[in-house]
């Protein structure tokens, strides 16, 4: 799932300060599950912005709405922006971009999109995937070096590892973990085969994906 979190209120207010009537749009899929862009969070942000507006101006009006997913044309079609001059999207970057593509008014992100991750517990997530386009998890025992390694290197561990911890101090070293798990799974010998150069062009060169090119027409 895509994990997001709310931007600082000051940053959000700055973005929409020139607008008169702003619609906050939540997204009932990843953003809701991230506890960042569900109906509750939309309502809370509406109240927060109204309060800020009443206290400090400018006199912007804020309302709230929901979409099941901001990244689907059929759902986005349902959005009624009559009377609004801007949208604050509580969706991921894809939602903001897709709304911008389909609507004629400015769409601003209220959230920062962090990563593709998994839930550790209530309100806590762990980054698992960076959508690099060339998955190597099969060889790395299910631990993504691009995501979990601070440097994103393919031939770790680097010299910054100490007692299994990354020199950044905020995480375990992904490469030590990869080694340990491969060992535990009885395939420690495969570790030596890792470290080949990764083709990062897949990520930068894939801007669209259509599984039925003949049906969808030549791009």
């Amino acid at each position, binding site marked *: 799932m895509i994990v997001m979190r709310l931007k600082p209120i000051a940053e959000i207010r700055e973005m929409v300060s020139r607008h008169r009537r702003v619609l906050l749009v939540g997204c*009932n899929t990843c953003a809701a*599950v991230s506890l960042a862009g569900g109906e509750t969070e939309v309502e809370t942000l509406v109240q927060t912005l109204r309060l800020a507006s009443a206290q400090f101006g400018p006199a912007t009006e804020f309302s709230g709405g929901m979409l099941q997913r901001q990244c689907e044309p059929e759902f986005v079609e349902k959005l009624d922006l009559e009377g609004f001059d801007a949208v604050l999207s509580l969706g991921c970057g894809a939602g903001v971009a897709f709304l911008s593509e389909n609507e004629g008014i400015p769409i601003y992100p209220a959230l920062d999109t962090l990563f593709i991750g998994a839930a550790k517990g209530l309100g806590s997530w762990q980054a698992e995937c960076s959508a690099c386009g060339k998955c190597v998890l099969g060889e790395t025992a299910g631990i993504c070096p691009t995501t979990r390694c601070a440097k994103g290197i393919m031939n770790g561990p680097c010299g910054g590892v100490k007692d299994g911890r990354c020199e950044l101090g905020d995480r375990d070293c992904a490469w030590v973990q990869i080694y340990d798990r491969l060992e535990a799974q009885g395939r420690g010998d495969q570790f030596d085969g890792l470290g080949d150069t990764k083709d990062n062009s897949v990520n930068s060169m894939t801007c669209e994906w259509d599984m039925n090119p003949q049906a969808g027409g030549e791009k």
Partner: protein
Amino acid sequence: MMIAEGRYTDALQIILDRNPLPSVCGRICLRPCEDGCRRCNVDDPVAIASLKRAAADFGAYPNAHPDRPRPERIAVIGSGPTGLTVASDLAQRGFQVTIYEAKDRLGGMLRYGIPNYRLPDYALDKDIDHILALGIDVVTGVRIGTDVTLDTLLAEHTAVVVTVGLQGSRALPIPGADSEQVLSALPFLEAAACGEKIALGNNVVVVGGGNVAMDVARTARRMGAEHVDVVCLESEDEMPASDDEVHEARQEGVTLHCSWGPVEVAAAEDNVCGLDVKRCVSVFDVDKRFSPKFDEDEVRRFGADTVIFATGQFADVKDLGVELTPRGGVIAHPESCATSVPRVYAAGDVVTGPSRVVDAIAAGHRVAMCIVRDLTNDAHPLAALIEESNALGEVPQSMKSKLETRRRVQMEKLEFYEAVNTFDEIEVGYTEYEAAREAQRCLGCTTGARLTREKCASCLTCLRVCPHNAPGVKVGGFLYFDAETCHACGACVSQCPAQAISLEGHSDAEMMQRVERILYEPGFDTTLVFACGCTPNLPAIPGDDVRKITVTCLLRVAEATALKALQSGASRIALAGCVEANCRYPHARSLVAQRTAKIAATLHQLDMDKALIVPRESQEEDVHLR
């Protein structure tokens, strides 16, 4: 739950939807509902009746809003609990209802049979006034069958309902029973209810073992009798009187003599001098039929200046002209409530024999439903009133282990040595604080979490916050709530990002409305306190204008609700959490702390740190619970 939040008027409205006599039932109901309270599995049942009374005492009765008037005219004969219920139900549906009452005032046995120390007139009048406000006509002092015939009524009304109850007192056919100082229970109680003084002498013997006998004995004590002996056929275990009544009668100095059968009222010079009795060996035969056996050798005499028979009542409706049972009750079809005379219905004790007030109310709902069905072919809303609801099973062990035992809050009563000198109400009633404390014992069964599936994002937040594991996941990722386990703390409601969960009587939208309502009147430098119901006293809050919203748990205050208050006119908000030792949701503490921190962080971002007060825990020492 409403009472735990101090919302007496809302609570009263919910009660009135099913029971038109909350002030009455709150005082004298025999409380069969409490046996069904699931708190029984934990400690004592919730004091449902006493809380009903608190709702009636502190809540405002809503204004009457009957349906659009209908042309049909209905006569209700008798104004006891059945008659009042059917009149209320039908008037609410728009029918033109007239109550015919033989006595001067309405209420039937509630007024003339139940002594004032249990049900004072003002308490009864509260309920009756609310019912009559529906636009019901009242004709008192008219006895149907003698003063006015049933046919006359039928000519003027579309339907007639007979709810006259049991007005005759059964006397025992023993020698001396017709002496002057031998009284019957009902006329005696009626005289007492009307404030008449009856010369009883010092020694009174009451015959009977039911609640009426206890009422008679205790009333006799209040009328000045020094020695009151209650003599009954049954053994103490078999006595029909409720344990509470027997206990209180004894406290008031009434002496109970069980297993004696009256033989003769002994007279001396035109005056009663005693009751002769013989030992009763058994009351019922092997088939549980009434068939008393006596030991003729063991006899004794209870000295008495007055003997009062409280040995049962009978229906006194010979003059009515409807078909009767051999015992004198009205024959009415159990399903349709119809009698032998077309358009005449009957219900309540006159049909079933003696029953409890709640049974009488249920009978009233049933006959009202039958009449509405017969006259309009649509009895839908009333039919719901007589349906039995599905009971939940026992409180599961997993939940029990997370509940703190908390004994029932005892209601203050007059001391018995005081009570016995007056007809003042014995039970004083809960204070608002006591009512809230008692209501907090409610486990909230069936008011628990409900899911709007269309909105659910399957985020599993509810599953993660629930301390009782009430939510579960079905195949396909669909969430569901187990009603047996949920006890309505509201943790999931305010955490659900999709606003897909609500509780009975609580949702974020309702909280917003409560905030708007309480801040409707503009104020200066207003502080709105969200107080946990467990918090007995508000901590010191700055400002002159302090308003309070009580919630069963601060978890019910969503972040948006708190921010809304600041926008709606409050200069600051205070989140007064509860004292841990008394918290009904001990698990909520850390979640509330998280919520509070989030609100503080948001306000900090807005440079409004001073708009939030989180008082230190309030002190419990000065609170005295009786």
